[in-house]
């Protein structure tokens, strides 16, 4: 394996949690709900995932528990913003804070416990192709799942009737309600999907990427996932491009550090955050006057009878 191959491989693994979390949030936002608590759901997924995996000795169960934990936390959010029509920004922040705290409590007994990561799956024959084979067809199951997820979400949003209804709810919930669509039920399902995705992304971080638990290990990736959704203009395939760009940045930054670039390591570590800001600015400049996300995004909905 060449160094270049190795770099590409690490970029893919670093991008995958961003992609999974972003694609979940994309669906949530398309339904008109802004859930800022991705970071909280992700970190609870990471903690619950590794706790369950260590307790049961099964990575599969760990992943399952992580997804359920993400969904459980998103359910709390849903109760607040759908049931009580609370402010979505504030509720999302509450979710982020609560998730970080809960994950610390859950993960406390597991600090420093090492376990083997989840192995890679080799696609027979295809993985023998030079370069492409080792990069694309010799990955862990999450990578394949994340790509399948992007395609599925793209198909759902653009080709299926249910996806059309979901987008209608996000664009104009009053009109969708008048047509008889159950706005809150649709949004509930979208929020649960987003929570499950964030939990899965968290499980990837604690079970594959760094197979141990440390408090606050998601280090702002949930927030970057939110930025990716904006960057992607709420389109699934662009979210994939965005996630891989951000993943590449984090990895290249690490390589620059080890290659002895004459810059303090903290400056390089700050780069992904600074570039997120830069990208947000550039994308908004490029989109002046154009569509800026689903029209009902973040607006509470109260049905009138």
């Amino acid at each position, binding site marked *: 394996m060449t160094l270049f191959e190795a770099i590409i491989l690490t970029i893919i693994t670093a991008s995958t949690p961003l992609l999974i979390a972003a694609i979940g949030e994309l669906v949530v936002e398309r339904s008109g709900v802004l859930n800022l608590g991705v970071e909280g759901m992700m970190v609870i997924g990471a903690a619950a995932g590794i706790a369950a995996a260590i307790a049961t000795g099964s990575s599969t169960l760990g992943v399952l528990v992580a997804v359920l934990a993400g969904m459980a936390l998103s359910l709390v959010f849903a109760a607040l913003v759908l049931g009580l*029509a609370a402010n979505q920004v504030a*509720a999302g922040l509450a979710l982020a*804070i609560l998730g970080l705290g809960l994950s610390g409590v859950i993960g406390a007994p597991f600090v420093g416990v090492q376990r083997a990561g989840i192995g890679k799956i080799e696609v027979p024959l295809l993985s023998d192709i030079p370069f492409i084979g080792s990069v694309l067809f010799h990955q862990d199951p999450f990578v394949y799942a994340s790509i399948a997820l992007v395609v599925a979400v793209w198909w759902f949003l653009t080709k299926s009737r249910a996806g059309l209804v979901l987008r209608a709810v996000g664009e104009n919930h009053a009109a969708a309600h008048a047509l008889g669509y159950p706005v809150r039920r649709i949004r509930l399902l979208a929020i649960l999907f987003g929570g499950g995705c964030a939990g899965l992304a968290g499980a990837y971080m604690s079970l594959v990427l760094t197979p141990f638990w440390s408090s606050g290990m998601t280090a702002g990736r949930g927030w970057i996932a939110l930025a990716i959704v904006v960057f992607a203009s709420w389109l699934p395939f662009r979210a994939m491009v965005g996630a891989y760009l951000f993943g590449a940045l984090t990895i290249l930054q690490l390589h620059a550090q080890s290659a002895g670039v004459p810059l303090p390591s903290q400056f390089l570590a700050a780069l992904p*955050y600074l570039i*997120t*800001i830069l990208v947000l600015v550039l994308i908004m400049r490029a989109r002046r006057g154009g569509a800026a996300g689903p029209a009902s995004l973040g607006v509470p909905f109260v049905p009138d009878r």
Partner: protein
Amino acid sequence: MRLVMEKRTETPISLMLISPLIAVALTMISAAIMFALLGKDPGAALYTYFLDPLSDSWGLQEVAVKATPLVLIAVGLAACYRAKVWNIGAEGQFLFGAMAGGYIAIITHGSTQGPWLLLVMLLVGAMAGAAFALIPAILRTRFGANEILTSLMLVYVAELLLDFLVRGPWRDPAGFNMPNSVVFEPEATLPLLMAGGRLNIGTPIMIALVLGFMLLMGRTLKGFEIRLVGEAPRAARFAGFSEARLIITVFMISGALAGLAGVLEAAGTIKQLQPGLSPGYGFTAIIVAFLGRLNPIGCLFAGIFIAITFIGGENAQIMLRLPLDATRVLQGLLLFFVLACDSLLLYRFRLIRGAAA
């Protein structure tokens, strides 16, 4: 039978006062359940968390010391959130203010200056916080970039900058390679209010600012503008209030207060710069702002309450071996319950008998 929400035309004052108290009560009940699940005696844990910090002079002083930065930041954030401007990067503005104010203390270290030094430090800290908050504000008004994300990203940048400074150029040469700056000279630290304790003049400064902000929000045109833009943006536009100018104003106000809180913390409580300068004050202040109903006086009481949980959490960690993150859980739950109770203010819930329409 089904539950229907109706928008209230007006909210009774009594309900506005009671709702944060209900939220606190619900948080305590959840806390008791969580303590029981963690295998601790809920009664003893609740006592350690919420009452023990108030039982002696030392504890009371510590509560005031912790409440000072929380309330200062929260008052600024409340102004932002009133105008529906979402500054969630106060933690970064806090650190930036501490760094700028601390810089003055570091360059004057070893020389004798007058009492003006402290004043300069506080001013520089506040200005630096405002300047740091100006970045997301301008990115929002000039380019329309989402201020939630940009202000949050800058928190990580500020944390890394502080880490770089105290490990690099600002490290104490006589500090055995520890990542911290020199210990500030006595004249660059805040005078104590009483011997034996850590209560310093930061707390009265905070209280004076809370009162000032109460007047600003309630009695001035600027305060009216802030409230109007948040509650009725269309009406505010017709009244000729510029949204862009307001975003810049509230960001700078909250940045200045967070920066001031930062330099007060560095010069008062810690007396040097170090990476762990803030136990997340900037984020916890978000909870304080909401618990205080986005009102300066409310923030004062809310800040005191949250400060109690901070001290109580530290005590509980030592005495009951409860994880420190349990405090974070409580604070997150509290924000949830506050938001849930707020819905009771905006809507009336009614059970309607009969089949769903």
